[in-house]
């Protein structure tokens, strides 16, 4: 087994991997940019190395520097997490060339699935159903013509893409020109490649994905599905497992197709095959993510399988601990991505210093968090600062626990997506599981009933504090009542005999 693993990532996922290593008795090495010296992953790892200035291109994307650190620190493996270098076949190869183990799939599998066109061709041969669309590399004019043939709405997608970058939905020919331009610009910036293609929009479709585990000995199993249809501009906001739209028969059918897709590229490690599922239980291959995913915890909670620890065991050459028939779904898990974004202002990123923080706990609640008191939330990295996962015996209990935990979450200093999530869980369509990937386009959050009451409280408290400050100015020393844990306000009420209860 590995003695020391370097985690080539930051934030909550770096912590997640550090914890898995600690539970397996493996030492951990963190890397950090100037923006992350005080970050949790630096503090919770056994060792930490500085790798560059805040921009990712000068730190977390510097594969060469990271491999040097791994060699210097005596690490024998590198876990890339998600994002950054996780789906960079060149990096995976360079890690191997340096004599280290890359905890993830083989470079060839990353490359095959990384190019969306190659991926579609490869899995199609293995019998995986595809969505109608164009080949990549067409000109804007050709794409415009193809779109008319496929029929609007169409999706513009980046050939090298992922994570919604460079992706646009277009409803009419008139919007095509600006959408193609924006998609190409984003793709070029994000991936250094502005090749795009079109895909038919499957209407009323859900985003359902299958988690895969594959070892080096040809064993491939799936851990059931995740439902990720609650998306905003192709960014997932809420994920759950299982899906209300998937019964056991469909689960095994989709699972078998996902396993076939993985086998088509000789996949090894954890991976996810994403599908669109329409109302008639037809499903189409979207893409395969050749890495650990943000939403992996919901699968862990309903299967009892620790996916990160399995990845480490697989990378060590061990055969899978589980057979397909050992995998059972029990209960329901829902994840809410807590981002530093302002849901009242079009999800604009919010920056600032975290001045108060108390994360929810209690039955059925799991937190995967990279946020801490005193943290400076900036614009260098992804705005996701924590994940809140609620588990329940059934979907209703999971939703109720999620709502309870969201209400309990205390965070101040930045705006977060929590108000969005609180609104969502109170929406009947969400509660009934009646949604598709376009749900948020027309979604109106329920009106907050207690806004006026909260405003009144904020006004009152501000006046009380200003008043208290005025009074303290003429007082000397510490207030006696306060020393006993009593506020000056209750003391005053007591003294005046005005309290309403004994």
């Amino acid at each position, binding site marked *: 087994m590995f003695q020391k693993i370097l985690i080539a990532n930051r934030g909550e996922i770096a912590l997640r991997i550090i914890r898995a290593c600690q539970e397996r008795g493996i030492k951990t090495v963190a890397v950090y940019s100037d923006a992350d010296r005080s970050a949790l992953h630096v503090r919770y790892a056994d060792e930490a190395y500085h790798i560059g200035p805040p921009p990712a291109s000068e730190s977390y994307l510097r594969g060469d520097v990271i491999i040097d650190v791994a060699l210097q620190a005596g690490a024998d493996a590198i876990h890339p997490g998600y994002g950054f270098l996780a789906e960079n076949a060149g990096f995976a190869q360079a890690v191997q060339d340096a004599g280290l183990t890359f905890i993830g799939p083989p470079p060839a599998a990353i490359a095959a699935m990384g190019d969306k066109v190659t991926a579609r061709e490869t899995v199609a041969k293995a019998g995986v159903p595809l969505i109608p669309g164009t080949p990549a590399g067409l000109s804007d004019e050709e794409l415009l013509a193809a779109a008319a043939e496929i029929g609007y709405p169409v999706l513009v997608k980046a050939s090298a893409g992922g994570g919604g*970058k460079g992706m646009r939905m277009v409803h009419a020919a008139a919007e095509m020109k600006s959408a193609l331009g*924006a998609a190409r*610009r*984003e793709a070029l*910036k*994000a991936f250094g490649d502005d090749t795009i293609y079109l895909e038919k929009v499957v209407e009323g479709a859900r985003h359902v994905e299958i988690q895969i585990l594959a070892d080096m000995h040809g064993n491939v199993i799936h851990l059931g599905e995740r439902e990720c249809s609650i998306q905003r*501009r192709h960014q997932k906001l809420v994920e759950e497992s299982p899906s209300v739209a998937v019964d056991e028969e469909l689960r095994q059918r989709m699972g078998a197709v996902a396993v076939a897709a993985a086998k088509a590229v000789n996949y090894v490690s954890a991976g996810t095959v994403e599908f669109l599922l329409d109302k008639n239980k037809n499903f189409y291959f979207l893409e395969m993510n050749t890495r650990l995913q943000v939403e992996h915890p919901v699968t862990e909670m309903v299967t009892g399988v620790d996916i990160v620890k399995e990845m480490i065991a697989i990378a060590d050459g061990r055969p899978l601990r589980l057979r397909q028939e050992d995998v059972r779904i029990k209960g329901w898990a829902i994840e809410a991505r807590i981002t530093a974004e*302002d849901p009242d*202002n079009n999800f*604009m*990123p*919010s*920056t600032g210093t975290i*001045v*108060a923080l108390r994360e929810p706990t209690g039955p059925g609640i799991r937190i995967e968090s990279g946020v801490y*008191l005193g943290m400076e939330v900036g*614009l260098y990295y*992804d*705005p996701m600062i924590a994940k809140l996962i609620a588990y329940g015996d059934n979907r209703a209990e999971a939703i109720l626990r999620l709502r309870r935990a*969201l*209400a309990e*979450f*205390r965070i*101040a200093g930045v*705006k*977060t997506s*929590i*108000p969005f999530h*609180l609104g969502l869980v109170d929406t009947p369509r969400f509660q009934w599981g009646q949604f598709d990937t376009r749900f948020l386009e027309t979604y109106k959050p329920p009106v*907050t009933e207690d*806004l006026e009451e*909260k*405003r*009144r*409280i*904020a*006004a*009152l*408290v*501000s*006046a*009380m*504090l*200003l*008043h*208290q400050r*005025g*009074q303290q100015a003429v007082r000397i020393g510490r207030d006696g009542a306060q020393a006993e*844990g009593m*506020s*000056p*306000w*209750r003391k*005053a*009420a007591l*003294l*005046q005999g*005005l*309290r*309403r209860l004994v």
Partner: protein
Amino acid sequence: MKYLAQIDGITYEIEIEANNAIILINGEPVEADLLQVDPLGLYSLLLDHRSCELVVEEQTQGYRVTLGAQTFDVRVADERQLRMEAARADVSARAEGDMPITTPIPGLVVKVLVTEGQHVEENTPLVILEAMKMENEIRAPQAGVVRDISIQPGQSVEGNAVLMILGQENAVVSS
């Protein structure tokens, strides 16, 4: 002592009398017990026995109060003080109907989609701003005429920076 607190343009009158023992909000008496819980600005309020937690940050002209997931910027002053400020503010007020277009976040200006003097309808895209590696469109919140564009493509802007002014139709015609 009488205080005026302003939030989102709404004014509340709070009276605190008899050595803190009598508290009225807009004339209505309440029982309020406020206690600072930790040195960082976390407070516990019991308002007529209803419990709530708040985070309070001091600001130049009042407090930023976070209650659950909501954040309010509160301007508070004693009555006399606030009236004086209001009078001062009136003098320097902008021409009525002018609306500064600001960006809520720092970012990089990718494109400016309008020119000065151009009439725009509500929802017209004005600027493309890149932040967090995503392109975000800043749109016109109302119809008007573009004035005083203070940015250009390639320029980085701070949060809350004014990008341009959206002027009133009439104001421009008469000038």
